[in-house]
């Protein structure tokens, strides 16, 4: 029995040496990779060990998400208690296809309609949409002192829209101070994400005039890159962190957004306050 004991010890040590990769320590020894065993983070990462992502994100999008991360978490990665938002997941999608159509009619002015296709496969069924925005990055050359008033026409083409008139978002902003523009599309996307639609095809165009020189008519909106789509979600799975449980406050997304309204908010240069918490809200 001593000999067999020795053999089994040698076997075990060889086994441990061969498993130098930390991932094998996380996987069950019987070989079948039962998904329930690993929390989603490790499951996802264990599937990807060593590989590099197939598609690299746009550098501006990465810059924006890093700013968002610094707003919400400390250097050690601990969520800051000061943040008052209720979402524990934020996903940024770049359009997987974009084409510009010739203006269908003069009403939209010389700006072409831009078609955008977003693939939302990464959104899980446990993730519920709380807010969604289209994020435009303005290139620096757009900086000008004049105030610009824009109207944004945004139509969801697929899945087939319910035949509603395209929502309009009259809003004004001065180009020089803002590097990003957020256009709130929550009311448009909420029903689609809730019905597990994962491919969103929309067309957007801006019609802008300078307030000091309306006679110049519309001008070309200097949007350097196609917009990103940002989804603010509440992941209801057990492994996700639910800070609002400690707040004991029930939060409901806007129940009845006004039909077709698409609110728009220029975002300051720092983009640090991704969402302004109104001053009057008292934290309990």
């Amino acid at each position, binding site marked *: 029995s001593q000999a067999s004991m020795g053999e089994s010890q040698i076997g075990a040590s060889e086994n441990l040496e061969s498993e130098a990769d930390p991932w094998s320590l996380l996987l069950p020894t019987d070989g079948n990779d039962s998904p329930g065993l690993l929390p989603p*983070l490790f499951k996802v990462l264990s599937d990807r060990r060593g590989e590099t992502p197939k*598609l690299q994100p746009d550098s501006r999008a990465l810059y924006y998400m890093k700013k968002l991360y610094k707003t919400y978490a400390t250097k050690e990665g601990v969520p800051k208690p000061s943040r008052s938002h209720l979402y524990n997941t934020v996903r940024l999608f770049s359009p997987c296809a974009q084409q510009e159509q010739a203006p269908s009619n003069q009403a939209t002015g010389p700006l072409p309609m831009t078609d955008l296709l977003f693939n939302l496969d990464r959104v899980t069924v446990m993730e519920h949409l709380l807010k969604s925005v289209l994020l435009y990055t303005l290139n620096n050359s757009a900086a000008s002192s004049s105030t610009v008033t824009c109207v944004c026409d945004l139509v969801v083409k697929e899945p087939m829209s319910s035949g509603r008139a395209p929502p309009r978002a009259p809003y004004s902003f001065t180009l020089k101070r803002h590097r990003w523009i957020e256009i709130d599309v929550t009311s448009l996307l909420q029903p689609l994400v809730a019905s597990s639609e994962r491919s969103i095809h929309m067309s957007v165009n801006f019609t802008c005039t300078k307030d000091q020189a309306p006679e110049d008519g519309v001008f070309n909106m200097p949007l350097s890159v196609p917009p990103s789509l940002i989804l603010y979600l509440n992941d209801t799975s057990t492994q996700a962190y639910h800070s609002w449980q400690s707040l004991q406050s029930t939060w409901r997304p806007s129940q009845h957004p006004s039909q077709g309204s698409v609110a728009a908010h220029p975002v300051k240069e720092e983009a640090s306050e991704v969402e302004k918490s109104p001053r009057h809200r008292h934290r309990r």
Partner: protein
Amino acid sequence: GQKAISSEAKGPLLTASFNLSEYFKQFLFPQNECELHDFRLSFSQLKWDNWIVAPHRYNPRYCKGDCPRAVRHRYGSPVHTMVQNIIYEKLDSSVPRPSCVPGKYSPLSVLTIEPDGSIAYKEYEDMIATRCTCR
């Protein structure tokens, strides 16, 4: 009692005090008492850095050390822990002594690049040990 104490009487007194300190030693906390320890790692050590953009450093912490016999007030342990300790000491030493394990955690925010090139910010529960307990 000053007069009562003479040089020859000091002997037994010293012995008694020596036994007294020995007696109290059993209630002192163990040298390597159960407590929280740091373990700072970077995701590049785990070859995750091409997926995880932030944080760069991750300190999950861990609990290590012996559980003192009188665990009640210091570790928020249930009475069961003391019962288990008594069983181990008086009845059956094959029953393990209470173990030093994490009793409270904090979440971790992670920024990852998804296979389709999208970027995800997620907050995961119970990723950093913040307090130890004896169970």
